[in-house]
Every structure is written in C-alpha cells, then in structure tokens.
C-alpha cells in the first residue's frame, strides 16, 4: 500500500519515532480508521477528481447564491447595449498607465452599413470594477433583502464580461442563474432515480423468483427505448400555461422515468452478490432479522458504490435537460437554464454573428466532465480495502 508509505514519512518527522515504529503505528491507524476516512484518503489521491470536486462546489455556490454572484438581474434589458460583445477587463488605459483596480471602458452602439449593431469603445468613460458593490436589490431565498453583489461597476457601466444577448441582457448573469436550474435538475433527477432504483432494485434482488423476472423484463424493455424521443414526447405534452416550477418538476420526473433502471440494476446486482457473503450468513446465524440485515449490513456495504454510480448518472440528466430546452420542448423562457440560453445559438447565422452565445456550452461541458471525474474517483475510492 503506497499510501501508508508516503504518510509514514510524515509520522516519522512529527513524532521522532524510528521508521519501523512509525510504520507500525501508521499501519495500526490504517486498520483502525473508519471506512469513511479511508475513502476520503483514497479519493484525495485522485487529483483530477479533487479538482473536479472543487469546480462542482463553485458551480453549486452559483446555484445557491446566484443573486449575489451575478452582477446584473438576469431579466433586465439594457437595450442600448444589445448584442454587445464580451467586454475587456483592463488594467492599462490607452496611454499605457497601470491601474491597480481593473476597469472597463464605455461602449457606444452604432449601426453598420448592413444595419448590424457594432460597438465603439469610448475611452474617456472609465468604470472601475469593485467588489461587494450595491446593485439591483434582491431577496436571497426570498428571505434576506439586500443589494450587495460580488462585483460591479455601477448601474450605468457596460460591465458585460461575456457580452449580451439580442435583448441586451447580461450573458454572465444569465449563465449564473441558468446554473441554478440546470444543475439542480440533475441532482433532483438523480435523487429521484436513486430512491426508485433502490426500492425497485432491492425488492427485485431480495425476493428473486417471479418478481425478479418481471422487474428485470420491465427494465430491459425500458432500456430498449430510445431515451430522447420518449423524453421529447412526454415533455412536449406538458401544457404551455404551467408555471416554471411545475414544468421544472415534471421535466425532472420525465428524466427519471428511464434513469432509475440503471440504478435498479446495480442495486439488484449488489444485493445478489452481497447476500451470499460470509458476514451476512454470520449475521443471520446470530439471529438478526431480515430488516436488520438489509439496513445494517447490506445497504451500508454497497452504499458508497451506489453513490458513485449516482454521480456518474448526473451528466446524462444535465445533457437531457439542456437538449430538451434547446429543442424548445423542455424549460421555456422566462425560465433560465443552460439549454434555454443555448436556444439563442440555434442557427448558424446567429452563431457567426454572436459567437459568445455558445458560451453556456462551455459550462455544460465543464459540469459534465467534473461529474464524470468525481464519479470515477468515488468509484475507485468506494472500496477502500481494495
């Protein structure tokens, strides 16, 4: 175990013990450490997974504190800055002077010969970017009324770091708010599949026989279904006059309809495998009840593995939502999700003229990759004794 080797040096320098004594101590600590600690130690060695976990934490901070991170309100239209390209954050002004506080120049809209909007930098207008500024008022989680934003340059400043869309709405703010729906739908959908999968898969694996056969056939049939057409058909049937929240929950439900099958399969497989293990037999011989065995021995023994599988199935949910919204059958404006934002980049002409509208795609890719790496790391760490 190379892990114990690397930490034995730490132990040695810390306590001044001889190498062998330290080794013994570390080994003992290793054998006495609870599984969670071991899992964490193993996960920590997977660099890519740790980086990804940090990225995910940042993204979920956006989910919880979108109002604070976004410099503008996502629905506010700055018509005089419509279709503005990403603003450059500068440290040096046009005369080459350094400013320790980053700033943006003003921008003025103009029409070119083909009636397309272009922007000219106005160099005598300088807006310094500050942290924790007062901006558009909001109520965080509907509870705390405040107007503090992480950064900003005043109400009039064209601080559109990622550009604006055709209505003059700040793309960065919309991206941050889009994170809220896109990433929570993934987690909620997986949580739902998780519960369904554990119950159905557990029943199937535990009872076996005819129940097992029926459940397995059903799963096989559902898995043969092309997911996207089914999702599209179901979500297109949601009435157009429903509220955002209601559509949101139903989309989540629709994404889980096929999602639970994979989970149920894994749970059933694990149930079948673990049921025959010696420790389960020992528990049964000591007179433990079935419910006790399931709760105290079976489920904990493969929980970490299931969590890893759940993490790996989040990306499919995120891509599913994005795709549905992109096609116009998922979440609809005024709801903001990455898919809804990408709808603006649907045709080639829009992309050529306003390429920054493709930026939500970058976040989709980052989130999907991060979940994949974290899931991989968790899967390796799930069995710390291996």
């Amino acid at each position, binding site marked *: 175990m190379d892990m114990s080797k690397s930490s034995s040096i730490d132990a040695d320098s810390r306590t001044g013990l001889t190498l062998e004594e330290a080794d013994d101590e570390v080994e003992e600590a290793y054998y006495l450490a609870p599984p969670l600690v071991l899992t964490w130690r193993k996960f920590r060695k997977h660099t890519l997974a740790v980086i990804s976990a940090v990225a995910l934490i940042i993204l979920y901070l956006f989910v919880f504190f979108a109002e604070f991170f976004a410099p503008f309100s996502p629905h506010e239209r700055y018509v005089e800055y419509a279709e503005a390209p990403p603003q450059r954050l500068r440290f040096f002004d046009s005369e080459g002077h350094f400013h320790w506080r980053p700033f943006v120049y003003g921008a003025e809209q103009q029409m070119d010969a083909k009636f397309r909007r272009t922007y000219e930098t106005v160099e005598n207008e300088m807006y310094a970017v500050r942290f924790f500024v007062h901006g558009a008022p909001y109520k965080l989680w509907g509870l705390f009324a405040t107007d503090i934003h992480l950064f900003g340059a005043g109400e009039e400043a064209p601080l559109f770091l990622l550009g604006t869309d055709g209505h003059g709405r700040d793309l960065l703010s919309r991206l941050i708010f889009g994170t809220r729906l896109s990433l929570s739908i993934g987690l909620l959908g997986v949580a739902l599949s998780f519960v369904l999968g554990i119950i159905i898969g557990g029943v199937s694996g535990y009872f076996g026989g005819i129940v097992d056969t029926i459940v397995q*056939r*059903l799963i*096989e*049939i559902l*898995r*043969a*279904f*092309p*997911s*996207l*057409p*089914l999702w*599209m*058909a*179901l979500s*297109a*049937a949601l*009435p157009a006059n429903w509220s955002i929240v209601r559509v949101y929950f139903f989309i989540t439900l629709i994404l889980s309809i096929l999602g639970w099958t994979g989970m149920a399969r894994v749970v059933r497989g694990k149930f079948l495998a673990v049921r025959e293990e010696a420790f389960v037999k020992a528990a049964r011989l000591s007179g433990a009840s079935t419910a006790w065995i399931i709760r105290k021995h079976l489920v904990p023994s493969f929980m970490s593995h299931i969590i890893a599988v759940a993490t790996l199935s989040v*990306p499919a949910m995120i*891509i599913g939502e*994005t*795709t549905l919204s*992109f*096609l*116009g*059958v998922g979440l609809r404006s005024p709801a903001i999700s990455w898919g809804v934002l*990408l709808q603006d*980049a*649907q045709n*080639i002409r829009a*992309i*050529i003229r306003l*390429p920054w509208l*493709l930026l939500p*795609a970058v976040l*989709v*890719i980052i989130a*999907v*990759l991060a979940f*994949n*790496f974290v899931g991989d790391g968790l899967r390796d760490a799930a069995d710390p004794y291996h």
Partner: protein
Amino acid sequence: MLQFIVKRLLFMIPTLAVISIISYIIIELPPGDYVTTYINTLMEAGDIPDHVIENLRHQYGLNQPWYVRYWKWITRFVRGDMGYSLAWHQPVRDLIGARLLYSLLISFSALMFTWVVAFPIGIYSAVKQYSVGDYVFTFAGFLGLAIPNFLLALILMYLSYRYLDTGVGGLFSQEYTTAPWSFAKAIDLLKHLAIPMIVVGTAGTAGTIRVMRANLLDELQKPYVMTARAKGLQYWKLVLRYPVRLALNPFISTVGWVLPSLIAGETIVSVVLALPTAGPLFLQALLEEDMYLAGSFVMLAASLTVIGTLLSDILLAIIDPRIRYEGAT
C-alpha cells in the same frame, strides 16, 4: 440454433406490446382529442355530411374506452395504417417512410464510424497501457463524452462554415434535392453524410474505446497469451489473431444497447443540421400536437431497436457457440 431464434422471437412479443402501449399513451397525452380537431378543420374547409363525421368517430373508436381505441390503433398499425397526419394532410406512413430510411442510413454509418475509429484506438490504448497516447485518447474520449450531440453539431457546423466554406445543412446540395437518383447525387449525399456521421458517432466512440481497452486488457493477461508468446509468436500477430477477436465479441452483443442512443443522437443532430430525416419531422409533430405522427415515430424507433437487438443476439449466437448452448437449454 433454431430453438434459440424461436425463443428470442417469442420473447420479443411482450416487449413490443409494452412499447406499443407507451406509444399509444403518447398519442393520447395532449388534452382534447385529435379526431375532433380534425373534424373541426374539415368543417372549416366546408360542410361535410354527418355520416362522414360519424364514420371517422367510429373508425378511431371515440366514445369508447381507451383500450378499445388502443386495440383499433395497434391492429391498424400492424397492417401498415399508421393514421393520418393533421398537419401534413397525408397518411403518416407516406411521411415517415423515406425519412426513416435516411435516419437509418445516418445511424448505421455513425455506428461504422464509431467502430472504425474506436477499435484501433482501443487496441492501441490497451497494448500501450499508460503511454502518452493512451492518456491523450482517454482524455479525448472523455471530452467526446462530455459534449452533447447538438453542441458538437453546432460547433462543427460553425467550423466548416468558417474554414471549409461550405454549407453543411441538409443531405443534398440544392441542385440535387429534387433530381432523380444518379451517381452524382449519391456522391453528393455521401459528402453531406460526413458531418452527421461524425457527430452522431463521436458520442459512442468514447465509451467504445474504454470498453475495448478494458476487454483487451483482460484478455492480454490470460495464460494463453503468455503461452503463445513463449512459443515465439510475433506480438502483433498474436494480439490481432486471438485476444482482439475475443475482445470484439461483447460489441456484437451490445449493438442493441447502442441503437437507442444512436436513434436519439440522430434525432437531435438532424434537427440542428436540418436534415430531411425522421427526427425534425418528429419534433415538429410534437410541437404541433400532430400525435399520430409523433406516436408512430416513437413506436417505429423503439421497434427498430428491439429488432436490432434481436439481430445482434442471433449474430452473437452464430459467432460464439457458448451463448447458443446456454440459450437452448
């Protein structure tokens, strides 16, 4: 062998039954019933005799419980009558037929693309495990997995517009769209096929590389490989002759699992690239609540998947006798 095929065929029946019920639920999902809308449209166009309306109501089994309506629908569907598209004023069968063929063409060529790209890379990654190339391909594979199909289509569309100076929408250039089939038209089709093929195929490539690599790594550790090497067989000759052939088996058996994602991928890529396949037709039908068209598409797509799975099972049974005997007993 015959016994195996018969068994598999019998197994297909309940599967298709469930699929047809789900498809019919989709048809009935939107509020209001379709035939009433249809009759209203007919009335707007001019007076129609009462017996025609009555006929239509009877034909579609309105005023009867849903299972009667379902039975009427499915029996007609099996005979090839898939209902009538309100939006297009055409029988659904005429609408879907040719387009489905293009969908299959794209899906099939995408699968071939996946295999042609993924197998050599998978073999390389397994044989040169932990080499620089292995890491590069693993990373590229992850990236391919992470980019949603429609995004890849958008990006490739943008790039080919920028650097190749060609439009990539559609399956034919303008001058060939309505032209009769000819050699030139076929070439034109192949040219337009490239981008959808790459886009749909890329998503599967990443997974295929990983599985191929894992399969082959398992095989390479087996004693027979060492024996063959000890006997002096050339390394590459050995790898390609035995372990690779064994590592390929699972792919044949899992074609059925790949098909649903191929169909899904094809649907969305066709929407983005505006290809004349069944996908965009399906999306439009959903948005216009043209439900017989939409339901038929779901039914056909799922049925094709099931049939594809059956074919791959039979193929595997032919290749691998162990499966055959297991299935027969």
